[in-house]
Structures are given as C-alpha cells and as structure tokens.
C-alpha cells in the first residue's frame, strides 16, 4: 500500500509538471506551427531564477516567484518578437533558431553559475501523511500550484474572449483575421502564456529537482513524446499524455529499480505504440496539408 501511495503521488507530481510544459509547447505549436525546442530552456531559466533570487540574494518567496515569472515571460516574448517571428515562414530555420536559443541560454547559465548541481530552498517545510506515506509539504505545494494553473488555463481557453480568439486562430488564422481578431497579437499573447506555463513549471520544481545548465534536455524529449502522444495542438491531450508518460516512467522506476535508465525507452515505446495505432495521437487532428 505505501508503494502504491508513493507511486500515485510521484505520478501526479511528474505528470503535473510535464503537463504544464507540454500544454505550453502544444499551445504554441497549434497556433504558430512553431516546434519550440527552446521551450524547456525557459523552464531551466525559471529554475535558475528561483535559485539565484532565493539562495544567493536571500529574497522572500513571493518576490522571487513574481520576478522570475515576469522576467522569463518577458524573455519569451522578446525572443518571439525579435527572433522567431522573423523566420516563421521557414520551418527548419525555426527549428535551428530555437535550438540555438536554447544552447545560448544553457551556455550563459554555465558561464554565470558553472556546471554545479544546485537546488533552490523549499518554500515550505514539514511533511504530511497521505495514502499511508509521508509526503513533503513542498511536493504538495507543487501539486497545488499545478492544479490551480491547470484550472486557470482551462478557464482562460474556454470561458474568456481571449481564449476564444486563441482557439479560433489555431483553427484557421485567415478566417480568424477576417472576424476581426488581430492574429499577430494573439500569437504574441499565446507565446507569453506558453512561456509563463514553462516558467511556472520551473518555479515549482526548482526546490525538488536538481538545477543544472543541461536540465532542459531530458524534459524536452518527454515533452515532445507527450505532445505527440496526446495529439499536437490539443491541450487536453497534452495533460492526459503527461500523466500516461509519468505513470509509465514511474512504473519502470518502481518495479525495475536496476533498470531505471530504461524509463525513457519505455515512455518512447508507449508513444510508438500509440502512434502506430492512431497516427494523430490520442486527441489530435491530422493537419491537412496546405495545398495551393
């Protein structure tokens, strides 16, 4: 029973973080058809921001979170406005641009903090007994943040005018533009939301995961797997895919402790099986080829 309890908690935790990352990735892909390989680099930057403000400058949690969130989101907006938007017509150039951007961020962090394994201080201390296991409060807080952000994202996308314009632009940018939606502005706002989601994920895992310059690569693979598994452009699919992948990973880690490096392999295998059965992922739509 404690094993199952721990499995559930860990799966929810990892799935939640992956879900935040994947939904942002999926959102910007569905809107602008940008495969943003720098997405998890923003997550890395947010984790470093938390570390720097809280440990090195000794600030309070609220200030650190606010400044990190705003700073990273602003950086994402600037990167979109001045770099990605200009090459958006060339799909491969976008890929290269985002890889270069992610590598540049990684190298800057390497110069600033060198290759040490760091961790940010926990926001709250103590632990609680749930499902027969003792869970650190920090993990519960992270779970709470993830749940709140998920609900907020869902409300934003379904209930507000902005959400409607985002979904309309994703479905058909030309028609959305005819209906009076400013497509470039909506794209910019979506990029901001996507980066903010990555930043929230970074902020919430900074006290739990080790912070190091290359921490963006393992989640990047997982995020791509999840987004494909759930179907590109579908936020619901991203979240469900995230929990499936987190469950597969944790099952491997829990029942084959000696083979925990195989977690990625099994996650990939799950994706391959889903794709072979359903070529557009669980909730995705096959994008019609643009025919002129």
């Amino acid at each position: 029973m404690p094993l199952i309890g721990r499995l559930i908690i860990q799966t929810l935790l990892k799935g939640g973080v992956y879900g935040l990352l994947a939904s942002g990735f999926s959102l910007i892909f569905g809107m602008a058809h940008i495969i943003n390989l720098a997405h998890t680099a923003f997550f890395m930057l947010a984790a470093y921001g938390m570390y720097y403000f809280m440990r090195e400058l000794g600030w309070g949690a609220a200030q650190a979170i606010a400044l990190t969130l705003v700073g990273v989101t602003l950086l994402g907006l600037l990167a979109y406005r001045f770099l990605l938007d200009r090459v958006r017509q060339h799909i491969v150039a976008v890929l290269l641009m985002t890889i270069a951007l992610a590598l540049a961020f990684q190298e800057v962090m390497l110069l600033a903090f060198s290759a040490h394994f760091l961790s940010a201080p926990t926001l709250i201390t103590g632990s609680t007994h749930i499902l027969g296991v003792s869970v650190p409060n920090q993990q519960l807080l992270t779970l709470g943040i993830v749940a709140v952000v998920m609900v907020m994202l869902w409300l934003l996308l379904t209930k507000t005018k902005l959400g409607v314009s985002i979904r309309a632009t994703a479905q058909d940018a030309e028609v959305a533009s005819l209906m009076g939606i400013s497509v470039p502005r909506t794209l910019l706002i979506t990029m901001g939301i996507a980066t903010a989601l990555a930043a929230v994920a970074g902020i919430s895992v900074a006290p739990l995961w080790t912070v190091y310059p290359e921490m963006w690569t393992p989640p990047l693979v997982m995020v791509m797997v999840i987004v494909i598994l759930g179907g590109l452009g579908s936020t619901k699919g991203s979240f469900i895919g995230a929990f499936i992948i987190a469950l597969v990973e944790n099952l491997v880690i829990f029942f084959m402790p000696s083979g925990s490096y195989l977690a990625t392999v099994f996650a990939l295998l799950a994706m391959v099986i889903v794709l072979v059965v359903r070529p557009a992922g669980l909730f995705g739509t096959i994008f019609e080829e643009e025919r002129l």
Partner: protein
Amino acid sequence: MLRRLLKNFRFSVLPVPGRLIAVIFFAALFIIPLILPIPPYHMLVLTFTCIFAMFAVSWDLLSGYTGQVNFGHALFFGVGAYCSALLHKYLGWQPGVTIPIGAIVATFTGVVTCFPALRLRGPYLSLLTMAFPLMLLGMVIAFKDITGGEYGIMGLPPIAATGTAQYYICLIVMTVAVLIMWKLTDAGSKYVRTGLIFHAIREDEIAARASGINTIRYKLLAFAIGGLFAGIAGALYVHVLGIAGPSTLVMTMSFQAVIWVAFGGIVSIYGPIVGVLILYTLLHFLGIGGQTFIGKNQMLIMSIVVILILLFMPEGVAVWVRNKIERECPRCKLTNAAWRKECRACGANLH
C-alpha cells in the same frame, strides 16, 4: 571522352559561379594536404569534416528533398557504427569488410523504420523517428556485456596506416557519395527520375500519387538511401575515432545534422557541406587552445552566430550566397551569373 569532359567544363561549369566554386572547393580539398604540411589534429578534423558532410547530405536528401523530416538520423549513423564495431570485436573482421556490412545493415534499418513512418506525416513523423535512436541507445546500455555500455567498444583498427591516407579515403568516399546523391536529387536530369519525384512528394504527396507515382516505393527508396550513406558515415567515423560509443546515437547527433543542413541551406546538396564546413571545421580550428576567449565560449559564440545569421539569411548561408551570384533565365530556365545582362543561351534580357 576527355574532350567531352572539357567541353562540359567550359560550357556548363565556367559560366556558373556556384558550380565553379564547388569544383574549386573539391579540388582544393584534394590538393591542399599535398602541398601544405597539416598538423595531425587538423588532419583529423578535416577527416571528420568529410564524414559529417556525408551524414548531413544524407539527411538533406531524406528530409530536405523528400520532405520526410527525420529527427532521428543518428539511428542510421549509430547502426552503421555499432554494426561494424561489433563485427570487428566478435569476428575479428577488418574495416574493409565491416564498413560495407555496417552500411548495408543501416540501409535495411532505414527500410524497416520507414514502415511505421509511412502512416505518419509532418511533425508526427519527425517525433516518431526521434524515438528510435533513443530506444536503441537504451538497448545499448541495457546489454552492456555485448556493447560495452557507456564506454563503448574500444580499440578499433584505423582504416589506413597514416592520418593523411585516412583523410584521402574519407574524402574519396564522401565525394563519390555526394556526387551520387546530387545526381539522384537532380530534378532536371534526363536519365534519373528520382529527383523530380522526391520534389513532387515533398510539395504535394496526394498530387504525386494522383499522377501515378508510387509514393510509398519512393519514400522507401529515400529512407534506404539516407540510411545507406549515414551508415557509411557512421562506420567510417568509429574506425577513424577508434571507439564506437553511445555518443553516435544521442539526440545531439541527430540534431547536429539538422543544424548543419538548416544553417547551410536545406534542399541543396552543397548547403549541408557549407554548414559542416563553417559550424564544425571552422569552430574546431578556432577553438584550439581552450584558454582563449573563443575556446572557452565556443558553444555560446556558435549559437549567437547561428541566431544572427538566420535573422538575415533564413534560407541558409549557401542558398543566400547562391541567390546573390546566380540568376535563372526567365525564358529558358538556364542558370546564369548574376552580373550578366543577357542569358548565355537564348539571349533573353535578365533584368
């Protein structure tokens, strides 16, 4: 024969600056080591340049021309590498035998990969192919008794006794491979139809099928050719390096091909070569020493250079330069130097 070659050179190479540059470039690759003394380290970098150029061009053929954007090209590289290394380790065969076998196995891998990939398109295909090398990497580490795990298979024999001889073997293989791939993707060729068909599949697969092209067969062919040349590159790579390690399968290796091709210019055979030459060779020549500012911040400088260059030449460096120095005749579609006022064949006004 010789006269025909000379005639061809005079009438279809000399008037087109891009082709002239390509010929001079390959001639320089062959001649420079003969007249200039090159230190062993630089020689090794040049050898790897040839190997990576072949790898990048094979990605361009598969993903650029045919449009099957493959994020896991390291699979073929790694299969070729591990196959020839394992054959040497367990059967004691020499590189002359193991490299062709490694290449054939990589071709076969390309065909097998294609079957699940046939149903998918666009980003789904890219990300599915990304999974294969990572899964193989997991297998390599899981069976560490056979494959050597993280340390890889060490002590592989070099393909030739001296560094210069190795360089020449790799250079010749690369030149032949690039020529074959260039011919196969030449859409204007009268003898080989594949170039035209690859273009058609990328532009509009449904229309290509409607025109009576068996697109599945040609996609399989593209995967097989891509696998073959990437496999040769991988097998050569491990024999030059002496170690077949997991680094041949990691995601960085797959993305490196994408980076080189996108930087040089996609859907052009020379683009990837230019990309490798600038991003790999130049960087290594600048990065020696390790203590200079450039040496320490190699990656940072590379990424900033890539970002800045992409802003101004989003189609890639080589394509940008080509568009500056060449112009297509509007009437007869013949390539002319940009500074000519009239087409060299039909005399039409170029401006």
